[in-house]
C-alpha cells in the first residue's frame, strides 16, 4: 500500500474536487443572483463539471493507490463506479434542463444537490474504509432526501421526501450499528485489514460480528431497494420528481451496490457461507415480489419502481453466488441497467406536463400512432428491461445467470428466469398500450427539447451497442473486479 503525502494526494481526487467546486459555484450563483433565471447556467455548469470530472476519472484508469492514510482509495473498481455515477449525472442533468423549468423547481439548489449527491456516490465507492464509506453514503442520501421534495406544492413529493428521510435515517442507523459491531469485534475499520485479520487464525466469529454483518445487509439492502427493505421505494419513486426518480433508480442503486460489493467481497468474503444463504433468500424475495407487484401497477412510475426492485433481485443473484471473477457481471448489469432505466424515465418525462404528469398506463394508449419514434424508443427500453436480445438487458441477464449456473445455483437461476418471464408481461403491457390500443383522449401537446432526444438517443445507442458488442464493456468490468483477487 502506497500512502501518499497530502500535497500530492490531491492529484488523485481531481474529479471529486471538480464536482465539489461546481456544486459550490452553483450554490453561490443562486445566492447572489436570486432574481435572474440561472437554470440554463447552472445546468451548463453541472454538465461541464461532470464532463471534466469524467475525463479525469477515465485518465486515472489502472491506478491503484491509497491516499489520506488509507481513508481513500483510487482503484479500478472505484473508478468504474465513479465513471458510472458521472455518466448518470450527465444524463440526468440533460434530462433536467427542460424538466426543471417545466415543473418550476428551485433551479440553483436542484443542480447543486444533484452534484452533491454524485459526490457522495463517488466517495462511497472509492474507499476501503468504513468511515469514508459511511460519509459518502450520508452525503449522497441527504442530498437526495431534499431533491425528492423539490416539487413545491405537490404533497406527493413532500411525502416522498419525508418518507425517504425517515426510513433512510433508520437504515443509516442500522448500517452504522453494523459498522460499530464489526469494529467492536475486530477493532478495524479498513475492509481489507478486516479480511486479513479474520483469516489470520486469531479471530473467532462471535454473535456480535454476525449481527454486525446482518445489520450491514439491512443497511445496504435499504439503499439497493431489496425486499424486505424496499417498502419506501414505490412511494418515493412515484412522488419524487421524475428526473430524481431516474437518478435514484440508477445512481443510488449503483453506488450502494458498489459499496455493498466492496465490503462483502473483501472484508466479509471469508464468511461467504454465512451470508450467502441469507442473500439467496433476499434475492429470491426481491425478484419475485418486485415482479409480481409490478404486474398490478397502472402507473408507469410505480411500475418502473417495482421493476427496479426486481432488477436489484437479478443483481443479487450474482452477488449471492460469490464468484469473484464473475462479480464483473454485476458491474456490467448496473451499467446496462442505467441506460435502460434512464431512457425509460426520459420518455416518461417527455410525455408529462406540469398540470398532468401522464404517468398512467392509459396515457400511453395509441402512442405509436401519434409519436411513432417515441413509442419505438420506449419499446427498446422496455424490451431491454425485459431481457430480449440483442439488447443489452439480455446480455446483462445472460452473464448474471451464467454466474449462477457456473457455481451450481440452479434453483436460483431457474427462479430468476421464470421471474424474467413474469416481467415480460408487464413490460409488454406498456408496449401493448402503445401499439395495440387506440388513443384514449388527448394527452396534449408535448414539450420537446433537444436534450431529451440526446438522452434517448445515447441510451438507445448504448443498449444496442452493449448488447451486440458486450466484449469491451465486460472486460472493463473484469478489470475493475480484479481488486478482489
Amino acid at each position, binding site marked *: 500500500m502506497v500512502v501518499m503525502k497530502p500535497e500530492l494526494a490531491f492529484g488523485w481526487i481531481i474529479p471529486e474536487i471538480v464536482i465539489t467546486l461546481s456544486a459550490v459555484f452553483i450554490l453561490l450563483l443562486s445566492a447572489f443572483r436570486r432574481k435572474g433565471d440561472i437554470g440554463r447556467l447552472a445546468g451548463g455548469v453541472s454538465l461541464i463539471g461532470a464532463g471534466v470530472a469524467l475525463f479525469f476519472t477515465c485518465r486515472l484508469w489502472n491506478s491503484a493507490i491509497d491516499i489520506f492514510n488509507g481513508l481513500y482509495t483510487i482503484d479500478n473498481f472505484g473508478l468504474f463506479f465513479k465513471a458510472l455515477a458521472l455518466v448518470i449525472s450527465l444524463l440526468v442533468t440533460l434530462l433536467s434542463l427542460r424538466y426543471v423549468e417545466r415543473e418550476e423547481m428551485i433551479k440553483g439548489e436542484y443542480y447543486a444537490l444533484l452534484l452533491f449527491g454524485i459526490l457522495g456516490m463517488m466517495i462511497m465507492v472509492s474507499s476501503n474504509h468504513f468511515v469514508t464509506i459511511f460519509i459518502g453514503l450520508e452525503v449522497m442520501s441527504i442530498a437526495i432526501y431534499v431533491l425528492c421534495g423539490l416539487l413545491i406544492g405537490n404533497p406527493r413529493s413532500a411525502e416522498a421526501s419525508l418518507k425517504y428521510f425517515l426510513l433512510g435515517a433508520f437504515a443509516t442507523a442500522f448500517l452504522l450499528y453494523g459498522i460499530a459491531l464489526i469494529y467492536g469485534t475486530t477493532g478495524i475499520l479498513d475492509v481489507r485489514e478486516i479480511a486479513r485479520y479474520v483469516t489470520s487464525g486469531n479471530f473467532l466469529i462471535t454473535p456480535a460480528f454476525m449481527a454486525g454483518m446482518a445489520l450491514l445487509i439491512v443497511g445496504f439492502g435499504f439503499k439497493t431497494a431489496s425486499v424486505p427493505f424496499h417498502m419506501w421505494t414505490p412511494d418515493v419513486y412515484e412522488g419524487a420528481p421524475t428526473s430524481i426518480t431516474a437518478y435514484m433508480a440508477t445512481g443510488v442503486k449503483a453506488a450502494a451496490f458498489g459499496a455493498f460489493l466492496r465490503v462483502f467481497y473483501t472484508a466479509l468474503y471469508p464468511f461467504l457461507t454465512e451470508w450467502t444463504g441469507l442473500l439467496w433468500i433476499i434475492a429470491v424475495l426481491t425478484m419475485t415480489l418486485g415482479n409480481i407487484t409490478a404486474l398490478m401497477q397502472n402507473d408507469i412510475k410505480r411500475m418502473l419502481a417495482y421493476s427496479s426492485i426486481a432488477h436489484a433481485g437479478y443483481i443479487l443473484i450474482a452477488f449471492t453466488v460469490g464468484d469473484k471473477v464473475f462479480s464483473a457481471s454485476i458491474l456490467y448489469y448496473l451499467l446496462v441497467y442505467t441506460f435502460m432505466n434512464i431512457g425509460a424515465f426520459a420518455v416518461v418525462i417527455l410525455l408529462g406536463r406540469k398540470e398532468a404528469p401522464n404517468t398512467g398506463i392509459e396515457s400511453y394508449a395509441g402512442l*405509436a*400512432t401519434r409519436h*411513432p419514434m417515441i413509442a419505438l424508443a420506449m419499446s427498446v427500453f422496455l*424490451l431491454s428491461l425485459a431481457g*430480449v*436480445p*440483442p439488447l443489452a438487458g*439480455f446480455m446483462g441477464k*445472460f452473464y448474471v*445467470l*451464467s454466474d449462477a*449456473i*457456473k457455481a451450481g445455483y*440452479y434453483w436460483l*437461476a*431457474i427462479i430468476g*428466469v*421464470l421471474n*424474467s*418471464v413474469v416481467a*415480460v*408481461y408487464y413490460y*409488454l403491457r406498456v408496449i*401493448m398500450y402503445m*401499439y*395495440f390500443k387506440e388513443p384514449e383522449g388527448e394527452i396534449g401537446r408535448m414539450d420537446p427539447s433537444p436534450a431529451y432526444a440526446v438522452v434517448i438517443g445515447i441510451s438507445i445507442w448504448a443498449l444496442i451497442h452493449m448488447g451486440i458488442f*458486450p*466484449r469491451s464493456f*465486460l*472486460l472493463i468490468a473484469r478489470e475493475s473486479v480484479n481488486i478482489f483477487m
Partner: protein
Amino acid sequence: MDMVFPLLSTIIFLPLGVALVLILLPRKNPLLIKVFTLIWTMLEFGLSLPLFFNFNEKTAGMQFMENLDWFPEFGIGYILGVDGISMLLVLLTTFLTVLCVLCSWNSITDKVKEYYASFLLLETAMLGALCALDLVLFYIFWELMLVPMYLLIGVWGGPRRIYAAIKFFLFTMVGSVLMLLAIMALYFHYGRDTGLYTFNLLDLYKANIPVMKQYWLFAAFALSFAIKVPMFPFHTWLPDAHTEAPTAGSVILAGVLLKMGTYGFLRFAIPLFPQAALAAAPLISILALIGIIYGAIMCIMQTDMKRLIAYSSVSHLGYVMLGIFAFNMQGLEGGIYQMLNHGISTGGLFLIVGMIYERRHTRMIADFGGLSKVMPRLAVFFMIITLSSIALPGTNGFVGEFLILLGAFRSNVSYGVLATSGVILGAVYMLWMFQRVMFGQITKEENRNLKDITKRETVILCAIVFFIFFMGLYSQAFFRKIDATAAGYLQNMQTKIASTHPAGPVPWR
C-alpha cells in the same frame, strides 16, 4: 469452406438492412413501400438460391460456413453454416416471405411501413436462427423472432389479438428461458470437461455428458422446442395465435416458425443429448401420436376455417415429430421433407382462407357453401392444396407422410397403425370442410357476388401449386440434398451412443 463471400450473413442481414431503409421511406406512399419490399424480398429469394444449387450433396458436414470471433474470452463466436436440413428451410423462409408480402398487398392498410419492417425483421431472425451454429447466437435470433411476431399478431390481428399476442409471447418465452439455462449448463460442463469454454455447437456435439445430466438438459431444450412445435400438451397458444394473426402472419407462423421447434430438436436437442433423446423417444412419440389424433378430432369440430387449419398444424407437426423420433432413415427424411411440405401446403391453406376472408370478412364455415360456383378458379387451387394437405399421391404431402409412416412402422408397429388412422381423420376434416365451403348450393346471398381471385392472387397460388407438384413428382431433387446429412446424422448419433455405452444395445436397425 467458402470464406470468399459471406453469403449466409448477407442473406440473414439483408432483410434487416431493407427494414432500416424502409423506415426512412415516406409514410404517405404505401405503394412505394410495398413495391420496395417486394423487390427486395424477391432479390433475397434469388440470393438464397445459390445455397440450393451450389450445395455439396456428398457431405454431411456444414457448408457455407462463416466463423468469426465475437467474444472470444467467453467462447461466443459468430458461426454460421447450413446443412441439408437447414438449407431447405432457409429457402422455404425466403420463398414464403415473398408470398407473404404479396398476400398482404391489399389487406394491410394501417401502419404499412411498420408492418413490412416487422416482417423483414422477422425474416432476419428466422434465417439467423436457422443458420446459427453458436448457441448464444442461436438464442439471440430465437428470442428475436418473438418481438416482430408479437407485433404482427397484436397490431394487425383480429379482434382477440391482444390476448393471442401475449399468450404467444409468454408461452414461447417460458420454454426458451429454461433452454438458456441449459445452454449455460452445457457450456460449463463442456468447459470443465475439456478446458475449452465455447458455445460452438460443432464442438459441443463432442461433449461427453453423463446420462442423468443429459436428461435434465434435454428436458429443458425439449420443453422449449415442444412449445414451439407445438406438441400436444403445449399447443394451446397456437390456435389463438393463428386465428388472430393476419394472413401473412399465419402463413409465416405455420410455414416457418413452427418448424423452428422441429428444427431445434433436430439441430440441438437430439444430437447434443442422444441418450436422453433415445430414452425420451417413446414419450415423445406417444405425445406426437396424441397430437396427430387429438389435432384431427379438434379439426373436425371447428367452425372457423382458420382455427381448423391451426389444429391441422398440430396434427401435421405430430407426424414430423413421430418421423424424427423414429430414428431411422425413412422417418428422419420423411420428417424433414414434411417440414417443407407443411410450410407449402398449410401456408397455401392460410392464403386461401385469407383471400376468402378479404372478400367476406368472415371465416365461419357455416357462412359459406357453394363458393365453387362463384369462384371457380379459387376452387381449383383450394382443391389442389387440400389434397396436398391430406397427402394424395402425386402431391408433396404424400411423399413426406408415406416416409414418416414407413419409419414409424419400422420403429414400432403400433405407432404406425395409430398414425395411419390420423391420415384417415385428416382426409375427413379437410374434405368435409372443403365440401361445406365450396360445394352445394349457395345458401347465403352475400356469397353470390364474390369476385374470383385476382391476377396477384393467382400468381401466389400458382407458386404454391408448382411446389406441391414439383415436390410430389420430383422429390429426388430435394432428397439428394437431404440424404447425406440424414445418413451422417444417424451415423453420428449411433457412434456417440456407442462410444459412451460400449456394451449398450442400439435399439434401432
